[in-house]
């Protein structure tokens, strides 16, 4: 009896087989209809260059790296007020994580972000892949510095607008120079001068020189800088890797000697994975000379650090040429799958305006992106290293951004680190990397 009553009860509480089937069928059909109505509508991926329009409105979402604070702390709000365009989201991510995040986003033809941060390597890589919206020349503000524009372009196509200009500069600690008996206001002009100064400066827990060789891009940059100073180049006109030339081998050999023979390079250089860690090391007085990005300056002169009077800045000391540097300009580009490209372009242009650029100089220490601001007295007085950049720009400033950048840099940096560790010779390391780079580049033809 109990069993019977239980059975009866469950018969009433559970749906019958037929009704369950009908319900399930209905749900599947509804899910199918939802899927049909919601998916499959790929956004426009037109390669037609985008020109500014007066009718831009609506909202945008921005994915930036975590270099600049000014956007989150005021620029975004002013942009919204001035243009009437709403910034639904301004998100910052660690630079080291951003490449893979963007690549995944683009691969999925995702339109979650309208504006993304870019620089020389990504403009080439993502631009060539058709993931960035090309811009028309009419979208480029007058007077944008060619080196800065180069960082957001590839193969003659402009894929974005720069947010700041940047090149590696020499910084030195005047107090430590004085203590070592060196002229505090005179920058070492040649590589030999630099090495001999670094030797004098090394001791008592302080190293004459420190670098950020700890990750792939850092190792590459440090080698590239000496390669350029030695009059070398990465590729020939046919994109054949030539960084293993005599000049390249000599450049890497000089870098190795700093660490292993002269012992003037801080050993921690091999594990510094971020230029901001280098900023801290210099600002703490643990390294007397560094070659770093302009953002080094505000960190070094900040309260509690070295102070303005103790920080010297100058062009990099040459080997075969007087000087040369690496470009580090960054910018914004428009996701080719964006649903609101007109408003996204407004943001790109807004960032290049004098008001935003001056704030960038004052608060972040990066160089302005237009030539007029580079000569502006308020800018040069606020940031003395802008004058150094003007001097620097008379010499070669290169980055060699290319679609194969990350693949080649991975191989090259492995060789550089092995040479730095004494596990192989500079020549063997560079020859092996050049072979691998040739194989990689051949795939792009």
């Amino acid at each position, binding site marked *: 009896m109990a069993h019977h009553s239980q059975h009866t009860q469950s018969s009433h509480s559970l749906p019958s*087989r037929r009704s*369950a*089937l009908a319900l*399930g069928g209905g749900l599947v059909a509804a899910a199918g209809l939802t899927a049909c109505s919601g998916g499959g509508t790929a956004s426009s991926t037109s390669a037609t260059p985008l020109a500014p329009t007066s009718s831009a409105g609506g909202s945008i979402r921005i994915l930036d790296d975590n270099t600049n604070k000014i956007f989150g702390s005021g620029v975004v709000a002013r942009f919204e007020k001035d243009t009437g365009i709403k910034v639904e989201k301004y998100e910052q991510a660690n630079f*080291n*994580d951003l*490449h*893979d995040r963007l*690549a*995944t986003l*683009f*691969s999925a033809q995702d339109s979650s972000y309208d504006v993304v941060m870019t620089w020389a390597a990504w403009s080439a*890589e993502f631009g*060539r*892949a*058709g993931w960035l919206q090309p811009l028309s020349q009419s979208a480029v503000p007058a007077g944008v510095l060619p080196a800065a524009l180069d960082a957001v372009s590839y193969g003659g196509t402009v894929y974005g607008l720069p947010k700041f200009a940047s090149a590696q500069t020499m910084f030195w600690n005047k107090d430590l120079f004085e203590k070592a008996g060196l002229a505090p206001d005179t920058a070492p002009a040649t590589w030999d001068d630099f090495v001999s100064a670094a030797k004098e400066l090394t001791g008592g827990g302080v190293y004459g020189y420190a670098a950020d060789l*700890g*990750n*792939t891009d850092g*190792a590459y940059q440090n080698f590239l800088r000496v390669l350029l100073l030695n009059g070398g180049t990465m590729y020939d006109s046919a994109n054949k890797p030539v960084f293993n030339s005599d000049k390249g081998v000599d450049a890497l050999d000089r870098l190795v000697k700093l660490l292993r023979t002269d012992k003037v390079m*801080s*050993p*921690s250089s*091999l*594990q510094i*994975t*971020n230029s901001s860690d280098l900023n801290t*090391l210099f600002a703490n007085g*643990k390294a007397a000379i560094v070659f770093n990005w302009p953002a080094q300056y505000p960190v070094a002169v900040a309260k509690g650090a070295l102070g303005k009077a103790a920080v010297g800045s100058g062009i990099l000391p040459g080997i075969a040429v007087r000087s040369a540097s690496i470009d580090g300009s960054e910018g914004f580009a428009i996701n080719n799958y964006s649903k609101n490209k007109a408003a996204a372009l407004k943001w790109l242009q807004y960032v290049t305006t004098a008001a935003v650029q001056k704030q960038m100089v004052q608060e972040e220490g990066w160089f302005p992106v237009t030539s007029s601001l580079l000569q502006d007295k308020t800018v040069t007085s606020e940031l003395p290293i802008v004058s150094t950049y003007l001097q620097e720009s008379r010499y070669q400033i290169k980055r060699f951004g290319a*679609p*194969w950048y*990350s*693949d080649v840099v*991975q191989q090259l*940096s*492995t*060789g550089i*680190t*092995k040479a730095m*560790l004494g*596990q192989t010779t500079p020549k063997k390391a560079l020859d092996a990397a050049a072979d691998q780079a040739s194989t990689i580049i051949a*795939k*792009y033809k």
Partner: protein
Amino acid sequence: MPASTLTPPRRPRGLPRLGGGRAERGDRRFNLLLMAPAVLVVLALFAYPIGYAGWLSLHQWDDKISPVHPYVGVDNYHQLFSDPAYREALDRTVYFSVITVLAGVALAIGLAVLLTQQFRFRALARVLLLVPWAVPPVVNGIMWHLIFDGDTGIANTVLRGLGIIDTNKQWLSSPTSAMNVLIFAEMWKLLPFLTLLFIAALQGVPANLYRAASIDGAGAIRRFAFITLPSIRTTILFALIVQSMWSLKVFDTIYVLTGGSGGPAGGTTTINFFAYLTTFSNLDRGYGAAIAISIMALVLLIAVFWMLLFRAPSWFVARGTRRRTA
């Protein structure tokens, strides 16, 4: 063989016919239908990604090079055998796995034995054991990065204080020492889980076995070898399989320790990290998928290896006990 032996036995009277009547068959189908959503979820979460990865691995799928993705057959798998970077990553993975799996399981058994003994503050010790397990993997990576920092890390300070080193060591600057730091960080993270597993298993071993062995004159080592180990055999097998899988797919600690590079000089790039770099940094999805499939195959092979090893363990079962009872 007589024909009659092939004839299936007659169904005893009173038992329902195999397959049942119409109503029973309908109920079975209905049960299957009720299970279908769960099966579909499993298919969506496991079978589809694996199938898609397999399909991807048969194509040349490098978005940076071409928007066209031709079918290339087993070319990507062929590349695995000729790619020195893959071989080096595999060597590093073997080094990492052998240490973390064998030393990890051995240490966990030792800790579990220790923590099942009666001593003061045992409860506190068990709680403290859980701390590494509670730390998120990324935080774990950051923490060890800070500890082993060449300039400001506490590891150098402690070792200098103990007189073990004279000058600061740059732990993360050479491939070998960076790999050893990685192993250390991973062991710290995995030990609590494995130890908890073994504590649970040890609590299921009947205490009278130990009492009887003691009466028979067996010392602590013999009791451990002939009672403890055989009693927790299945847990050891489980721990070895699970830890082998984890060691093959280690990622987050490498990412954080090395600034996302797998360095220095690729020294901490294990095969899983190599798959990541290939797929997401180099955007070579086809080859990346082939590497991922190879990792899956390795996981299966290793699991089978451990199961076969534990199937006929003449060295592992209580030989001493058998001899005495024979």
